[in-house]
């Protein structure tokens, strides 16, 4: 395989890594490095001693034509991980037991949500017609938020298993994943899973596949991963239908770093795909990116635990440890070669760009340090999360974090809470806007024609800007056709433009819309799910920037601007957003002794207003029989609360009010 095939993809190929640290806490199952899941069940030394026994595999017996590199892609819950479990069992990589459930999904969040966040690799040995094959299964995340992971995995593969649920049929992420594989020109093997289900309708799914993906129905393999039905056929198809990697053992050594993990004791563990030649323990290798030289200390296969070998050969996939001390040294997309045989570097990957931003603040400022170290640890291996310090007068010191997408953000939050037990206030997500300067002078001042605006405080005035740009996404929605009307009006309300609408069978419709990203970041998915009784699926991919009529909206309390509530909105949605903000504030600011005007304003023009009426009476009658303890307690609590109030002019705003207004609405 040549990387040029992948290059259209590289635009979206992003660096991402969910944290796999916390090696030191062996007892913490959920966040331990996945590779050490089995190892950690035994003492460390024992695990190391077994290495010698395993080094018997002679990888030179597996020339490129006996290697297949493939991954599995699927919509959430269509059975990708279950199929992976079966493949591991059938090839003897793991013992066949009842307990093998989502073996490759190690994170608590992965198991709870039934999603894969982190791509993983397992090398399988498989005999087919008297020949031993080395099948490298590269498990992938199911969601397009993590498509950088998918893309990276794909760059090391020649084929994919596209799993579709026999009951649910093609879903939004099936489509998104299909196109990733299709654009990479990989061999695609459609697999219809869950045929054992009562309502399974494999014929219908086959015709959907034929219609949407233009793959003949005869190519579909019907299986039940749960029961193991027909799974053997998949292994045969992998050998027969996926081409071997194009790589020659006679070329100089050349390998792509497609993933890396950080191990506290051994340093960086890089996952590599060998594109040419061979590499062995003791070789001196060079990172093309940094030009630094390293000595190979250990290398081997992932089965899926680390299995050291003497060498790795062209076409194979494995891991390498070469004394890199910092994750930054193992740049994803970097090319490795032998010191004495320099080669031309592979194209590499572009770094990930954060598309959704949210403020994160500790519930209480005393928890700041704790939260800081939790965020640091979670982001250590995840360069796709951008972290900027931020502070809000209402919420105190915190951070503005950038994520690749909504799921990425949710997964991050969930891990922060579950794995680090951190309680955080997460503000409603915003998206990065851009402004194009109109004068040469300003361009010179800023050093570029365009600036990206993450913080509304930095929003440049209309007068110095030739246009504002907002990020767009191409959304795919699949739903039964009875919901089409409702979905269309929802999309229309979100300023979406319909690009395409296809019946994938006689009941299900696939719609494509171009959305402003900011219209889907908060509650779009929830609304879509509820108006379609849960039947619609949604996915999106980034679709660049478009000019947009953006304005800065201020929120005023009795005429005073509340800095932390300033936001950038599209002119068309200014009124509804402003009104909603005013209403939420009205409900969360307690009445005071004077009237409070809550206003949304654009420049000096007020576009929405709510009034919080003054208290006319606030005194409790009667202290029964001298029982003033309760009353004192209440008043003391109010007095304590008063110290924590944010004062806007003379209006006291409790922190809760900001949290209510700024926080993402609970699902």
């Amino acid at each position: 395989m040549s990387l040029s095939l992948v290059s259209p993809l590289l635009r979206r190929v992003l660096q991402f890594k969910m944290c796999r640290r916390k090696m030191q806490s062996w007892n913490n199952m959920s966040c331990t490095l996945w590779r050490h899941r089995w190892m950690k069940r035994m003492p460390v030394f024992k695990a190391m001693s077994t290495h010698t026994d395993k080094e018997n595999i002679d990888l030179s017996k597996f020339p490129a034509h006996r290697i297949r590199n493939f991954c599995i892609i699927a919509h959430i819950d269509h059975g990708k991980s279950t199929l992976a479990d079966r493949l591991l069992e059938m090839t003897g990589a793991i013992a066949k037991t009842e307990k093998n459930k989502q073996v490759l999904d190690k994170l608590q969040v992965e198991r709870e949500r039934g999603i894969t966040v982190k791509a993983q690799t397992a090398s399988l040995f498989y005999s087919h017609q008297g020949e031993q094959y080395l099948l490298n299964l590269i498990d992938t995340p199911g969601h397009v938020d993590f498509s950088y992971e998918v893309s990276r995995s794909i760059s090391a593969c020649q084929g994919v298993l596209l799993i579709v649920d026999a009951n649910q049929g093609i879903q939004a992420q099936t489509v998104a994943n299909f196109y990733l594989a299709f654009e990479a020109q990989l061999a695609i093997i459609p697999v219809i899973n869950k045929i054992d289900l009562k309502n399974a309708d494999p014929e219908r799914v086959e015709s959907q596949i034929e219609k949407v993906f233009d793959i003949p129905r005869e190519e579909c393999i019907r299986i039940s991963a749960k029961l193991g039905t027909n799974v053997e056929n998949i292994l045969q198809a992998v050998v027969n239908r996926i081409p071997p990697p194009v790589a020659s053992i006679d070329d100089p050594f050349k390998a792509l770093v497609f993933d890396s993990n950080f191990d506290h004791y051994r340093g960086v563990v890089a996952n590599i795909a060998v594109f040419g030649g061979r590499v062995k323990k003791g070789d001196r290798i060079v990172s093309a990116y940094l030009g630094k030289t390293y000595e190979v200390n250990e290398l081997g296969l992932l089965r899926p635990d680390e299995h050291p070998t003497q060498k790795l050969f062209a076409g194979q996939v494995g891991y390498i440890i070469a004394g890199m001390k910092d994750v930054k040294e193992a740049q994803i997309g970097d090319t490795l070669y032998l010191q004495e045989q320099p080669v031309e570097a592979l194209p590499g990957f572009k770094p990930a760009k954060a598309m959704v931003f949210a403020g994160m603040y500790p519930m209480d400022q005393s928890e700041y340090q704790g939260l800081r170290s939790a965020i640091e640890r979670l982001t250590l291996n995840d360069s796709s999360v951008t972290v900027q310090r931020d502070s809000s007068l209402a919420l105190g010191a915190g951070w503005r974090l950038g994520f690749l997408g909504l799921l990425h953000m949710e997964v991050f939050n969930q891990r922060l809470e579950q794995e680090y037990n951190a309680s955080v206030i997460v503000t409603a997500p915003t998206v990065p806007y851009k402004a194009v300067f109109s004068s040469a002078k300003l361009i010179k001042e800023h050093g570029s024609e365009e600036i990206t605006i993450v913080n509304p405080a930095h929003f440049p005035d209309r007068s110095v800007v030739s246009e504002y740009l907002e990020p767009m996404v191409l959304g795919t929605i699949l739903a039964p056709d009875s919901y089409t009307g409702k979905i269309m009006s929802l999309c229309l309300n979100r300023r979406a433009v319909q690009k395409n609408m296809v019946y994938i069978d006689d009941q299900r419709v696939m719609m494509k819309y171009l959305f402003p990203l900011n219209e889907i970041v908060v509650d779009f998915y929830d609304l879509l799910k509820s108006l379609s009784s849960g039947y619609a699926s949604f996915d999106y991919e980034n679709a660049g920037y478009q000019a947009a009529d953006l304005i800065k909206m201020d929120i005023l309390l009795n005429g005073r601007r509340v800095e932390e509530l300033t936001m950038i909105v599209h002119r068309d949605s200014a009124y509804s957003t402003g009104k909603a903000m005013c209403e939420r504030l009205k409900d969360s600011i307690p009445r005071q002794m004077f009237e409070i005007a809550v206003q949304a304003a654009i420049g000096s023009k007020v576009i929405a207003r709510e009034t919080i009426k003054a208290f006319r009476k606030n005194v409790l009658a009667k202290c029964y029989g001298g029982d003033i303890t309760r009353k004192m307690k209440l008043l003391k609590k109010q007095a304590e609360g008063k110290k924590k109030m944010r004062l806007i002019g003379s209006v006291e705003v409790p922190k809760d009010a900001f949290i209510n207004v700024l926080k993402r609405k609970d699902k």
Partner: protein
Amino acid sequence: MIRHACLTVRRVLSVGLRCFSHVSTGEIIEDEFEWTHLSRQASLYVHWPYCLRRCSYCNFNKYISRQSNEHIMTECLQKETESLLQLSQVSSITSVFFGGGTPSLAHPSTIAAVLETVSRQANLSDQAEVTLEVNPTPVGMSKLEDYCRAGVNRFSIGVQSLQDEDLNILGRDHSSHQALQTIEEARRLCPGRVSVDVMFGRPKQSVESWEDELSELLRVCDDHVSLYQLTLERGTQLFKQVQGGQVTVPAEDVTAEMYQCARRTLDQHGFLQYEVSNFARHNAVSHHNMSYWKGRQYIGVGPGAHGRFVPLGDGGVTREARTQTLEPDVWIREVQQRGHGTRRKIQLSHLELLEEVLVMGMRMSEGISHKHWELFSPQLGLCEVFGTSTEVQELLQSGRLILDDRGLRCSWDGLALLDSMLPALLVELERQICQQLQKDCHVDAKKKTSNPR
């Protein structure tokens, strides 16, 4: 914790300083006298925990008695009165209040017995106000005369409403007619010393109907009126009904209007509002309640009763907040076993004491005079505490709060908003007291280092 410790230090310190000044100025001597005077007298609250039925709005400590145990109850009330009076070492009881529950269910002999006990232990002047809460039922009314003979000289009648339908919703066991009769009888027995309790903000009540009701009441009432706004308390039947939407209560703005309208009407009829919810003409104020608001000592007797006094008998020097055991049966057992049923006692720090003085004092129309404040805070005057805060300044400027040579008080408008102003005052009080404390500690530390003995 540290602050608490500091405050204790301050208490000790201030006592020391007072003694120190004792020699030099006569003024302080008078304060010293008043201070000791304060701890030598108290008012007495006696709680009768039983009711015949549960009012739909009431979450107070009351029990529907299944069997008559009045004999035991009487003994225990006497016993506890005796124990606590001894503990407090007060020489005189300035007023007695029988509250509940429904104390008018108690036999007049019970009331007499408790009063006799008081008289045996401390000085209870003939002039001392002795109030009994009365449910205006025929049975209650029939006993009024006997209560007077027992020593009661003031009645507080729980009229609540003059609308029979409303009385029904509230779960009261009397009619408006019975209420009017009871008022009449009480006035006959204790002219000028009858108070009526009325409630506003009741389900379905309007400002107009409230005005009419108040006028009707003013035609029959004596010289004292207490106005209470119905508060929905969690756990009551009414709370559930309102939550469930079967019953609606007037909105906040409507009850505010009812309150203001009642204040105006009562004023027009010569009733002076001397406290947030109390109105009197011909100076018929409730002395018992006044002593709460003035921060004086009170002893609480009976299940769930509260008290505030210095337990001198135990060698205590600081005022304690005391709560008696809630459940009558348990309370009875405790009194029988150890003479009293005090479940909880908490020493009030200097700051806590001042906080109570402030919160209670500001409920009075006259507010807190400089002299009144100085009694509790000889070192830090009202002006020093509240004079510098910008927020207090704003309240003064808005005309809702007044700080002048009389003292600190709410204006007529301000009184209705007291609970919005108190947090600001409490914040300032705490800040000033803590500052003073630090200064004192500093001076004290200096003294120690410069004068080693």
